């Protein structure tokens, strides 16, 4: 409960091997600086939960061998195409895939947020997703007749990790309309946040700002990280670095290229931070 202030490497050190880690899509607020630090520290056996999909973060962690299980509605690099290291791992069968669908991931996190073991959901019946998800169950609507439903178990991440525009010294973090980040923080056991800036004023003091703020109550630690979402960008602040992402996409299409990318941009001293 006691909120602490950290640097990037400290946060990466506090995310243990084997953790179930919830990550947002590229457009929502990605703590890319921590992702690079996780690769530097050689994180292993992570269980990634894409909320509800995952982009560059997932591809990099998979390529660097940090991932054992991937639970997501999709892995996408947007208009560039399909995430290359993810594709490679899927074809090789080197990671366990828990293919899902966006609303089921949100529902699983909402179940964790409410402390209930599962959430019933419409749709899904007849999908091969349901065939392959041994953790999902079929159920019946107890308030109807012959009305099948799918029951999605709670998703309780060990860690939620994301990047925001602004946090304060009490750990309150402003996310605006990106409420999936609040859901992640509510559902997860620990929440680590990077912020473009850490401000002195209390973000909960102003009623307008408070409406888009995660209370520090849910936040384990915050680190300041200028351009912390680079290269994927941060909505309302800075655009994705399209040239760099295209460079990544080209490099990551081969094993060697990906290793060169890591050497140049992740392991190189203070590459981007």
């Amino acid at each position, binding site marked *: 409960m006691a909120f602490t202030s950290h640097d990037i490497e400290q946060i990466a050190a506090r995310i243990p091997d084997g953790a179930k880690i919830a990550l947002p899509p590229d457009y929502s607020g990605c703590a890319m600086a921590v992702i690079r630090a996780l690769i530097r520290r050689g994180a292993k056996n992570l269980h990634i939960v894409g909320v509800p999909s995952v982009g560059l973060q997932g591809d990099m962690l998979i390529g660097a061998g940090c991932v054992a299980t991937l639970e997501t509605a999709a892995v996408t690099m947007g208009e560039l195409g399909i995430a290359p290291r993810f594709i490679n791992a899927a074809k090789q069968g080197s990671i366990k895939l828990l293919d899902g669908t966006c609303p089921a991931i949100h529902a699983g996190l909402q179940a964790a947020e409410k402390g209930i073991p599962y959430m019933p959901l419409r*749709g*899904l019946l*007849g999908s091969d997703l349901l065939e392959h998800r041994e953790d999902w169950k079929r159920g019946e609507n107890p308030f109807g007749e012959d009305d099948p439903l799918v029951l999605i178990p709670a998703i309780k991440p060990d860690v939620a990790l994301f990047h925001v525009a602004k946090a304060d010294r009490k750990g309150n973090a402003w996310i605006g*309309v990106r409420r999936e980040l609040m859901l992640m923080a509510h559902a997860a056991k620990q929440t680590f946040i990077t912020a473009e800036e850490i401000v002195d004023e209390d973000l909960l003091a102003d009623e307008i700002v408070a409406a888009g703020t995660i209370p520090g109550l849910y936040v384990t630690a915050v680190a300041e990280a200028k351009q912390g979402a680079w290269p994927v960008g941060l909505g309302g602040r800075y655009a994705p670095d399209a040239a760099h992402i295209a460079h990544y996409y080209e490099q990551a299409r081969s094993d060697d290229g990906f290793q060169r990318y890591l050497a140049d941009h992740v392991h190189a001293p203070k590459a981007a931070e």
Partner: protein
Amino acid sequence: MTDCKPEELLIASIADMLTGLRHVAVGNSSPIPGAAALLTRARSKGELRVSLLGSRKHTAFTDGGKELFDCAAEGRIDAFFLGGGQIDGEANINLVGIGDYPQTKVRFPGSFGSAYLYFLIPRVILFREEHTDRVLVPKVDFISAPGTSPANVYRPGGPHALVTGRCIFDFDKAAKRFTLRSVHPGHTVQEIRENTGFDFDEPAKVPETPTPDAGTLALIRGRIGEEIAETYPAFAARVFAAA
């Protein structure tokens, strides 16, 4: 007629399918459906609401990633668009991969919200520009979302039409079959048969997809081009720059 680009034909054709609706949502990476929805909105005199995912200006959600799905489940979204790495003759769609799951030979990004929205949104328009027997297959390798469901499954939604770069199909849920509605100018029924992996019905005489009139084309190239450029600048530059 001859100066109507393929993208403009598709935009106008899809827009016609949205007339009279109250709320159309458009997923990410969908410039042509997005432009179509904006075109219908422009002609609706404010009656149509458009939620364009990925747009700051043309979307109005404030409750996070779950809101699109909740909104659909509440019955507040009338139309949506889905694609597919594979689409089969029963309107099943595959966004996962080709070959045996999980170690598929070809892997697609994943199912996104398809396994849900296909059930809940009344008018789902399948859209895929590539019209080949690689995409339009007899049977998908993985069903991300099924085209139809047994009668006891709660399913107010489902496939309404399939729009490709060559033609438009309607879908008959009872028969579980597509029927050719119209062929785009410059294409033929025979060509479509050859490039479609599944069997489909066709009327005695297959009409040509109508091209947009001058007023519609001007609207597309003017206001719609500007509006869609906010979210898809590269698309707008490529299609509308020389218009």
